[in-house]
């Protein structure tokens, strides 16, 4: 990598660099490589200007046809010069060389070519391009099957390669506010910033270039009677001296959102090999001044994508800002005065222009005089036909005004098809554009609230150029290899094809031809494409309209948008208070919702689950139930409120007692289940499914605040305040009772579905409820979360060495499946009502209204052929069927699904496989044999009651 010093000693002339001038630091030399060859440039260069200074013209291959491509522009709109670069940062693909600062030791590589950029086998696609018109992929790869082609198409598609390894760049998110945000630091932007700053407004000026100054950096002019260099220096000094002004360079306003929120991609600290940081700002601005300038548009002629064909403004910018003269004999292809200005200025700064071909006949005398003074041949009223050359321009052919075809020899073509304001952000913010006939471009028309466009972004080009801009003739349409979109290889012929196939809406055109997609988002192609579309369909560009602009304005690193939200920060995992204790016991952790919980203890999953299940069935197991949702509901109306929420009767529950309940949504669908406890007359504890506490708490809040706001009740989610140790199994009571200070646990004093609270002998507060999800005698002991480990250790000690086995979530799931207890969200889905899972009697007993009640009275909710909860046993006791497999009915040779398996397991208790599921008319089908289909296998099963174990419930009440 860092071989800069070694390269620095090499003598490496920069044959296209002028002897003086430019805003580069000639005192220092930066060494870099392109495709393995070594070159030199200077601080102040972009990667593109340094390559051009070294005479490198072919930088890459086009996306689809693999045609050789060189630099088109000198800015962010670049569609061609997309390289893989590495400056110690790791490989970064598809970087625009025109917007990438030259760095010492930088390695750049061409993309989309094999074996090399100068000899690319993919070029065969170009030589046969008649076969690959727009939309070819929709037509050609259908027979016999898309999958026969997919691998090749995937390999050929896209640009660049994904970097490997971890991303070494740091990303951070920052927030800001300002009175005025100015986008762009040319004369218009600086002027707006100065004016507001002098009034005392809080001003943020954002410039995407590494240097503040915009067009003044390459196109000096007179401002307020002074040279712009002096004016710029004075303006920067004044702004730097004001506390209410912030200047950001090398930062792009990437998105404009509702209520004047703007996002800024700040790369100013990104160019370090180590410790690189990209910042992503969210800034809320009272006002926005858009001073983003305008994008010059290409001209249409044959082979206009050859390396050595650039925008006229880019020829100018390279000549003045970088002292790079991109060609030795430059020909101009123009239709407007702005292009003339660029080429004349480039000529005066050392880039020799030999001829200008202008599509207009009536040129201003001043232009003709200027050309004559400089010895530039002018061809007015001419039609550019084609550029000749294979890896670089050698000549330009054009039809002269009088008809004959003529040719000028040249090694560079500077073209200008007019300017189009950079209104992308304006449109994102909801601003409306208007087509301006005289300037052939789209200009801001209706400002979004707080927005204003100034300078070239508003369509006032004269302010910049100082010379009047002539109407730009739209290029005549001719068939052939005239490129509209260089990056995506979209030609005029593709638009013609799209029109023939009736893709005449500009949005359809974009998707069918891919014009305006990918890195540059059509900054140099949208206007051309919709103009051609208009000409082919007899509409003005204004009638055709533009495609919708969306964020991002220029490519933004995905990491910058993600910021810190990666790894564990993407979705922070919740750990149990006793996490480390479980880990020491050999727990295998899985993700259950956002919780990391022990799935089982020990590396052999099946054996561990069986061992844990049998421990609960035969002696006692310890389960960490802390994630169980716990919501306190309190107030004079607490019972009445919950009676509206639950399907079950809440009013009749006595203090100290526990009841199982279902919650429905208004559509009558089961959304949660669990027990609720009446702690006191006005005080309830609502248990929700683990991982569902936030959602249910928010659900209760919404109902209370929005509909039952007259009720006096408060609720609070206390899930993480209490750790829950569940003891389950025939020996549970014996172990628990040995904790000093606990109440009497005898079944007479503390039967199943009881609740108590108090303090242990050492003062530790506890809550205890006798409920069971396993079907065994079971106690859920809650203590403050920070006492989780001590209570577990004491229970263990009470049980005696090796007697209290920890059990994981998977064993509990087997235990509850054996009991046929539903797990909401697993055994139910978004169509399951309480009647479907056997709670019809509870529903019908409740006389008062509750959420979802009315929906359960609809005929559809009471249809006899609804899917209903059943258990099933495979006829072969060892046959396993996975959850999700379908119950299949076969009649008259046709097969249809009658439902599906929701839970299935290998039951250690019963010594066979079992399952539960939802099947049509299930309640009436006990004993029936049906087929379960999974992945090509049919397994015969017998439908049974969903409760496989202790159906009378004697064990859990014991």
């Amino acid at each position, binding site marked *: 990598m860092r071989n800069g010093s070694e390269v620095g000693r090499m003598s490496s002339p920069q044959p296209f660099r002028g002897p003086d001038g430019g805003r580069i630091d000639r005192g220092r030399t930066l060494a870099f490589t392109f495709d393995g060859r070594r070159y030199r440039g200077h601080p102040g260069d972009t990667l593109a200007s340094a390559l051009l200074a070294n005479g490198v013209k072919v930088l890459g291959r086009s996306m689809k046809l693999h045609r050789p491509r060189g630099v088109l522009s000198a800015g962010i709109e670049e569609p061609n010069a997309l390289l893989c670069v590495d400056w110690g940062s790791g490989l970064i693909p598809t970087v625009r060389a025109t917007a990438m600062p030259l760095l010492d030791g930088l390695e750049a590589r061409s993309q989309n070519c094999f074996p090399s950029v100068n000899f690319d086998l993919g070029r065969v696609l170009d030589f046969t391009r008649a076969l690959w018109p727009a939309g070819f992929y929709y037509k050609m790869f259908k027979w016999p099957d898309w999958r026969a082609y997919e691998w090749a198409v995937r390999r050929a598609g896209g640009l660049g390669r994904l970097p490997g390894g971890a991303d070494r760049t740091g990303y951070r998110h920052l927030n800001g506010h300002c009175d005025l945000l100015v986008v762009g630091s040319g004369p218009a932007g600086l002027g707006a910033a100065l004016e507001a700053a002098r009034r005392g407004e809080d001003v943020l000026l954002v410039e995407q270039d590494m240097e503040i100054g915009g067009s003044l950096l390459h196109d000096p002019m007179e401002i307020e009677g002074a040279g712009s260099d002096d004016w710029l220096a004075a303006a920067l000094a004044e702004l730097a001296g004001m506390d209410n002004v912030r200047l950001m360079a090398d930062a792009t306003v990437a998105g404009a*959102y*509702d*209520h004047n*929120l703007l996002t800024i991609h700040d790369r100013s600290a990104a160019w370090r090999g180590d410790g690189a940081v990209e910042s992503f700002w*969210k800034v*809320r601005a009272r006002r926005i001044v858009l001073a983003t300038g305008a994008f010059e548009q290409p001209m249409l002629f044959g082979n206009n994508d050859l390396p050595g064909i650039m925008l006229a403004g880019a020829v100018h910018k390279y000549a003045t800002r970088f002292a790079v003269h991109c060609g030795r004999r430059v020909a101009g292809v123009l239709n407007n005065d702005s292009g003339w200005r660029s080429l004349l200025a480039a000529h005066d700064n050392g880039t020799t222009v030999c001829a200008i071909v202008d599509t207009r006949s009536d040129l201003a005398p001043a232009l003709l005089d200027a050309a004559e003074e400089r010895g530039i041949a002018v061809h007015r009223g001419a039609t550019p036909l084609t550029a000749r050359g294979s890896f670089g321009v050698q000549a330009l052919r054009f039809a002269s005004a009088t008809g004959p075809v003529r040719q000028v020899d040249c090694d560079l073509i500077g073209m200008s098809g007019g300017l189009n304001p950079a209104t992308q952000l304006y449109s994102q913010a*909801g601003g409306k554009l208007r087509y301006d006939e005289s300037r052939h471009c789209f200009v801001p028309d209706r400002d979004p*609230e707080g927005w204003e466009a100034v300078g070239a972004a508003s369509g006032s080009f004269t302010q910049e150029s100082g010379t009047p801009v002539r109407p730009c003739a739209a290029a005549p349409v001719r068939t052939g290899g005239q490129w509209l979109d260089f990056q995506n290889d979209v030609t005029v012929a593709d638009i013609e094809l799209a029109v023939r196939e009736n893709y005449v809406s500009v949005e359809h055109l974009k998707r069918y031809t891919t014009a305006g997609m990918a890195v540059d988002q059509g900054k140099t192609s949208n206007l051309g494409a919709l103009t051609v579309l208009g000409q082919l369909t007899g509409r003005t560009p204004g009638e055709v309209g533009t495609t919708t602009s969306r964020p991002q304005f220029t490519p933004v690193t995905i990491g910058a948008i993600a910021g810190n939200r990666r790894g564990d920060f993407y979705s922070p995992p919740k750990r149990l208070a006793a996490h480390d204790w479980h880990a020491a016991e050999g727990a295998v952790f899985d993700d259950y919702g956002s919780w990391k919980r022990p799935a089982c203890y020990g590396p052999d999953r099946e054996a561990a689950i069986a061992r844990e299940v049998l421990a609960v069935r035969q002696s006692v197991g310890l389960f960490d139930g802390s994630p169980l949702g716990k919501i306190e509901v309190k107030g004079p109306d607490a019972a009445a409120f919950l009676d509206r929420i639950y399907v079950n009767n809440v009013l009749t529950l006595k203090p100290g007692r526990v009841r199982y309940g279902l919650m429905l949504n*208004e*559509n009558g669908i089961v959304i949660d289940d669990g027990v609720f406890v009446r702690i006191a007359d006005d005080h309830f504890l609502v248990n929700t499914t683990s991982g569902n506490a936030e959602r249910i708490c*928010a659900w209760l*809040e*919404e109902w209370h*605040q*929005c*509909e039952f*706001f007259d009720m006096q009740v408060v609720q609070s989610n206390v899930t993480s305040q209490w750790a829950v140790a569940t003891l389950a199994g025939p020996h549970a009571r014996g172990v628990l009772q040995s904790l000093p200070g606990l109440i009497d646990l005898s079944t007479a004093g503390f039967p199943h579905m009881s609740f108590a609270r108090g303090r242990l002998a050492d003062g530790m507060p506890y809550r205890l409820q006798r409920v069971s999800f396993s079907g065994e005698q079971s106690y859920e002991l809650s203590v403050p979360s920070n006492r989780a480990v001590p209570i577990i250790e004491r229970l263990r000690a009470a049980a005696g060495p090796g007697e209290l086995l920890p059990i994981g979530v998977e064993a509990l799931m087997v235990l509850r499946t054996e009991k046929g207890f539903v797990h909401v969200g697993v055994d139910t889905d978004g169509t399951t009502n309480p009647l479907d899972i056997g709670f019809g009697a509870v529903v019908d007993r409740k006389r008062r*209204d509750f959420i979802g*009640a*009315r*929906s359960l009275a*609809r*005929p559809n909710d009471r249809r006899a052929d609804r899917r209903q909860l059943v258990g099933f046993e495979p006829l072969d006791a060892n046959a396993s069927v996975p959850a999700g497999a379908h119950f299949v009915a076969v009649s008259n040779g046709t097969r249809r699904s009658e439902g599906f398996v929701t839970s299935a397991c290998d039951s250690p208790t019963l010594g066979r496989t079992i399952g539960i599921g939802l099947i049509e008319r299930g309640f009436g089908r006990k004993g029936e044999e049906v087929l379960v289909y999974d992945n090509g296998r049919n397994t015969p099963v017998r439908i049974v009651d969903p409760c496989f174990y202790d159906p009378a419930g004697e064990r859990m009440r014991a």
Partner: protein
Amino acid sequence: MLRIPCPFCGDRDEAEFRCGGELPREIPQPGVDDDAWSDYLFNRDNPKGLVHERWCHSFGCNQWFNVVRDTVTHRIHAVYRPGEPRPALDGPCATAAKSGG
């Protein structure tokens, strides 16, 4: 991203809120027929222009309130508490909203 005036906390970013959707009609009495019930459950007006919505400042005060928002301009014209009558939107606001298409 909207800037929403929470009636309890003041202006905050949309990211702090949860949108509960268009304000439902009043909950019908349990005895209504199936058509009226399904109309209440499933149908919303989805207007172009002013819409009354429920929002919760879920990463702030956790209070629900109602917002009058223009679906075209996203301008927020009023906020009010559940149970309060719908505010009368007079003059320029309402007019601007109607012409905002």
